[in-house]
């Protein structure tokens, strides 16, 4: 697993910082978490509810443990507990966090301060908001030394190690003046400043594009290896964890449901949830049907009896209901899972992914033709001379890093963005730039689904009214007929008709995106433009939405224009793919050809940087 060379000094000189005060004998783990329990304290209205319970794991020096779980699984709560921090409204219910044998949960506030940043360090998820906006980067970095000791040349050295070559201008600027990658490297420098024994990384590369993410991951691995630092890497993205972690622990609804060596766990998952996750993640290698999981994880405080995953588990049996399943060890390397049928599931052959047969439809006459479209914003070019065709019933993906202009292109097609040059023809006739000039028919046939499900539905209207809006606008159907159409489209997006009376804030992210889809489909469009519609969702929810979208495309013969930065997803969803970079199309063609044998260097680099767990071990 050779990452492209990065000019990071692999062999660092021995440091002048004395190793951690307590000499640890071989075998005692650098970090040991025993039966950690974190709760929402009881209040007048409701009893105490556990957010995280019965979590135990160990990490050896120089080793990286990946802590994986979807949103609401409690992984961030555990991460913060490793530094003795609990968010407002939560409290430590029990258990120990031993760093080199010393339980930091028992420390006083004063002693805890000495430990944080010194023996255990934290790398935040979104460095943009974790760095203080009103203080210069230099001040915030030097503050670590001011609190824990260390000097100037120490600073330049640690910045170099974090990959910040020319420190002076960076130290002098404010956080908002740096790029995402630079901000994250500053956070890394801050974390490694005092050579901590343990480092906790909370989804550090989520906000970064693939290439930067690759470089940051290499840096982290290099530093951990060099300084024999134990690391806990929290993420919702299995492929990223596969790249970096030696061991993996999977969290679900506040419980540690599976733990084991990374290679073994990914090869033969022992818990149905892990297995489900594996089947939901799109792969670069093959295009396979993404296997979503219906329902959602239980909220703290209303956990079903027995195994919390039972309601969504396809392997559930009566015994699952009797009580919390205890960890079952399935191999001599310590691979274990909290599932009564764990051994049975490990024996299943791999994840049995169903290959998707992309019957490439005939080269039908294009529904949408974009020719020579250029856009510039205050004399800076955003799109330069873009040409693109979307065939009827075809699914075309546009892939590019953020700022590449892919969203602007989508906005031009749907008329949100007015000042562009060039021509866009739809179903034979030319589209005027803005919404105002377009015929009702054109407006009806092109529909748009936005990225953030939480902002695309009017919180003050019921689901029925939201879906009804386009209907009342485009058709003069009587109310009864309209309600029937709404009921039908709700069932077609796998939501019960009773949802029509509910309000957006009562729905989950996935359900809201389905409502947005229903609103787009209720007026029978011909072209559906989706702008990163799954990037705001958990991978299991994303899988369900993608499958739904493809099923609807097939049933209704829709043309699909799918904008995303997630390359593996393109593999599973699109017929053709267009790679766009800095406003220009740099490669276009069928997915099978572009993603396996890319012609352009940029595409090749892009594909190489995509983390995936096929290559583990």
């Amino acid at each position: 697993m050779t990452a492209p060379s990065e000019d990071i000094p692999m062999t660092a000189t021995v440091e002048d910082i004395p190793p951690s005060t307590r000499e640890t004998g071989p075998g005692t783990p650098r970090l040991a978490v025993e039966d950690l329990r974190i709760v929402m304290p009881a209040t007048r209205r409701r009893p105490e509810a556990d957010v995280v319970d019965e979590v135990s794991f160990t990490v050896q020096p120089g080793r990286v443990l990946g802590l994986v779980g979807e949103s609401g699984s409690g992984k961030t709560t555990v991460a913060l507990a490793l530094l003795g921090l609990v968010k407002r409204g939560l409290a430590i219910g029990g258990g120990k966090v031993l760093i080199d044998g010393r339980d930091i949960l028992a420390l006083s506030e004063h002693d805890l301060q000495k430990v944080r940043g010194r023996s255990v360090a934290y790398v935040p998820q979104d460095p943009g908001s974790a760095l203080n906006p009103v203080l210069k980067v230099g001040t915030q970095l030097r503050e670590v030394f001011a609190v824990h000791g260390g000097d100037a040349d120490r600073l330049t050295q640690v910045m170099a190690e974090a990959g910040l070559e020319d420190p002076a201008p960076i130290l002098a600027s404010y956080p908002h003046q740096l790029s995402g990658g630079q901000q994250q490297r500053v956070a890394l420098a801050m974390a490694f400043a005092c050579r901590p024994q343990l480092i906790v990384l909370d989804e550090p590369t989520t906000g970064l594009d693939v290439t930067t993410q690759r470089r940051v991951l290499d840096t982290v691995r290099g530093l951990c290896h060099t300084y024999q630092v134990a690391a806990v890497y929290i993420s919702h993205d299995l492929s990223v964890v596969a790249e970096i972690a030696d061991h993996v622990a999977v969290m679900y609804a506040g419980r540690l449901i599976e733990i084991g060596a990374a290679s073994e766990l990914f090869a033969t998952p022992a818990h149905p949830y892990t297995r489900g996750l594996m089947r939901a993640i799109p792969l670069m290698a093959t295009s396979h049907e993404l296997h979503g999981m219906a329902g959602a994880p239980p909220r703290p405080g209303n956990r079903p009896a027995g195994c919390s995953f039972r309601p969504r588990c396809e392997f559930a049996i009566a015994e699952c209901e009797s009580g919390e399943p205890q960890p079952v060890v399935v191999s001599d390397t310590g691979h274990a899972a909290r599932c009564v049928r764990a051994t049975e599931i490990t024996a299943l052959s791999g994840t049995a992914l169903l290959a998707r047969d992309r019957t490439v439809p005939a080269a039908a006459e294009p529904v949408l033709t974009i020719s020579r479209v250029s856009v510039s914003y205050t004399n800076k070019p955003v799109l330069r001379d873009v040409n693109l065709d979307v065939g009827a019933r075809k699914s075309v993906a546009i892939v590019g890093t953020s700022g590449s202009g892919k969203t602007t292109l989508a906005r031009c097609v749907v008329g949100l963005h007015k000042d562009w040059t060039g021509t866009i023809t739809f179903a034979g006739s030319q589209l005027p730039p803005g919404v105002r000039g377009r015929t009702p028919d054109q407006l009806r046939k092109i529909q748009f689904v936005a990225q953030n499900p939480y902002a695309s539905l009017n919180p003050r209207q019921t689901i029925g009214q939201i879906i009804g809006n386009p209907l009342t606008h485009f058709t003069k159907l009587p109310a009864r007929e309209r309600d029937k159409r709404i009921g039908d489209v709700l069932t077609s997006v796998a939501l019960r008709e009773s949802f029509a009376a509910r309000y957006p804030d009562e729905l989950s992210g996935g359900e809201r995106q389905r409502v947005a889809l229903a609103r787009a489909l209720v007026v029978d469009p011909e072209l559906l433009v989706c702008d990163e519609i799954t990037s705001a969702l958990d991978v299991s929810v994303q899988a369900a939405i993608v499958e739904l979208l493809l099923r609807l495309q097939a049933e209704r013969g829709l043309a699909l224009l799918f904008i995303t930065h997630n390359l593996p997803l393109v593999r599973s969803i699109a017929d053709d793919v267009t790679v766009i970079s800095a406003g220009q199309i740099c490669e276009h063609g069928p997915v099978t050809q572009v993603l396996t044998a890319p012609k352009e260097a940029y595409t090749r680099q892009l594909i190489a940087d995509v983390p995936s767990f096929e290559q583990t071990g």
Partner: protein
Amino acid sequence: MTTATEATERVGPTSKAARPHPIRDLVIKRSLIGILTLVLVSILIFAATQTLPGNAASAVLLNTATPQRLHALEVQLGLTRPAVEQYWTWLTGVLHGNFGKSLANGQPVSTLIGGRILNSLVLVVLAGAIGTLIGVGLGVLAAARRDSVFDHVLSVTSLGVTALPEFVVAVVLVIFFAAVVIHWFPAVSVFAPGTPPWSNPRELVLPVATLVIVVVPYVFRMMRASMIDALESDYVQMAQLKGVPKWRVLLFHALPNAIAPTIQVIGLTFLYLAGGVVVVEYLFNYPGLGQALVGAVSDRDIPQIQAIVLVLAAFYIAVNILTDVIALAVSPRRRLPRS
């Protein structure tokens, strides 16, 4: 749940010269708009005072106003000239710094209200500064000890006090500290015209105290809210996780961020004071602009009304510009645009 933020790859901060100077531009732009507003305000007042049934002449002559005397005085004061001409002579006068003569006693308006501007300014600045300091201080403490008894007590009392009219506060203060219970402070200010207000500080205590009591709740509630926002932010959590001691987190990380939104409120309190001062000056017989305005309005002394309201409006615009400049200076994100 992760969102794909627009994290673009970019080079470090561009050189200083290339970047436009945001503060200078803001001040120039706002001052021009300010001047335009001032002219509009003066036209508005002139029009308003034209519509009144009585006029300066009847206000001066009162019941000795026989028709002949009324007419004679009106001619003498130039009230019989067409409104537009009156306004134009007044405007050109102002451009040359001459605010015209008072209709009531013929003295130049500038001498009449000159001293008073200083007096009112002292009151407003003193009350504003003290009110802000107390408001910010209490706001930080309440936020630091959120949901404690201290926090709840302060929040509820601040809710109550914001509802009290100024004169109720003033009356209570006078009864307790000046006239009845204890005679610590003079109930009234009697310093002679020309002498600066600080010549007898004890006379300033009650008027300033009244304004401070009325202003502190606003600053307190805003400061507490923005401090709570700051304390719940990612950068404060990061600071804690860096092992930074509690007091340092509060003062170096949370406070600088909480100040920016509060500056708007602090700016607004100074404007509030400019209005609130009228009642206080009236009750404490404090020779300020507010008192002069009430008098000028009753005497229909248009030039004096114009001058005072222009001074108030200019003060308003200046405070607004100053607030925005400080807000800009305090938040680098707005001052130094990304690219």
